């Protein structure tokens, strides 16, 4: 599943970028050691969880809309039925 692997990487990259920004906001340089040692507080983690969910919702949207025209079109004229 190429999309899942890519989405995982996009999510990880976004969190890394966020870590950089959080460090900068605290007046720190995003050195490798600081990035590795960074632990998000509850607010940051909640925002990240919401961003993960949002990304997952976008990727899986077609599966969450069972009555979507795309799915109906794909099954309506099934010759096997």
């Amino acid at each position, binding site marked *: 599943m190429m999309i*899942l692997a890519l989405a995982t*990487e996009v*999510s*990880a990259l976004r969190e890394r970028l966020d870590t950089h920004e959080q460090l900068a906001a605290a007046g720190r340089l995003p050195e490798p050691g600081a990035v*590795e040692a960074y632990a998000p507080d509850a607010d940051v983690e909640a925002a990240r969880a919401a961003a993960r969910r949002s*990304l*997952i919702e976008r990727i899986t949207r077609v599966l969450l809309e*069972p009555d979507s025209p795309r799915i109906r079109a794909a099954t309506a004229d099934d010759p096997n039925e």
Partner: protein
Amino acid sequence: MTQLKHAMLIDETHDERARDAFIASLREFTMAEIYPTLREHYRKVLVPRYAERHGGPPASVDRVRTVMEESPLYMGYSLLVRGTQELLWDTVGEAVERQLPALIEKASDASAKAADGKKGSLVLDPSLPLPNYTAAVDIHVMPGGFHTEIAAEDVFAGALYDRGVHLFAFGGLGPLNDELGVATAAAVRKQFPDIAPARILDLGCGAGHATLPLADAFPDAEIHGIDLAAPMLRYASARASSLGYALHLSQQDATKTNYPDESFDLITSTLLLHEMPRPAILALFRECHRLLRPGGVMAHHDLLRWPEEPFDAFMMAWTTRHNNEPYERASGTLKFPEDCVAAGFDAADVFVVAQPGAYLEEVYQVSGIRGARKRLQDRSLSE
């Protein structure tokens, strides 16, 4: 979703933690949102359409299969679940491989400590034959299964499973992945308030997730655990030591152990039976009867039944079709009390305790603890 840190748990980089979090979120979302949507789609769209053409709803699992395998939604769901599973092992596996030498060294140190009596013990048997049913398949698509060794004194499978199952359950098994084991111990205590086991055996103990709760529930007991897989046992031994527990672990086949008759007061298993074909499960029950002292109890935490409703049965078998769980139906279709009676137990001494699936209630709504107590006086001897 925070896993309790112990000496054997892998260290992860910033990005590995981020990947883990995404994969766990993906699993949770699929089970909590997409699975119910799929079920609704089946009931509201696929069943009426089928009924219109065939005069009634799909009446068998095969009919459901025909309907579902033509549904893009089901295909999407299947790709998503299987893809997430592969991604999970691949992601955690990379982190384990990176630090495998250090993990092996830690495990060796812990084993050396475990060897000095009080701290428990670890006995491996490289000559133990691996049953075909285990060797033939990588259970739940975990690369190499539980038994494969990729290095000397390997602990890869144990480290992979410990972190992997935590993400698989999106943290729902608790910080120590022990929720099912805690439930097993609690069910035994509740069902048999008088039980005070001196020796306990946990079958298929794996990383020890369900073994340590036995030590908590029965602090005076000597706790033994057996498993077919050496990498799991090495890991379990070191994990237990680092958490302050003394276990006696050995590499054995649960259907034919080397313990003498009547060695244990309590024998447990958690999520073991569904990884075994029916003949092996029946052999395991017979071995439990042989190993139990009079009044002793066997308690197995696993599927309690297999759904009869065609859609539920079809979806229950998803893991069999697509996630390398070939034997799952065998545990769900065991005959209670008959299969226990055949192993030597009395029908009146068989028990079943439903335990709603904590983290997968939607899907695994049929799990719990069941087993039997061995008669204080064996009727077959007194007759």
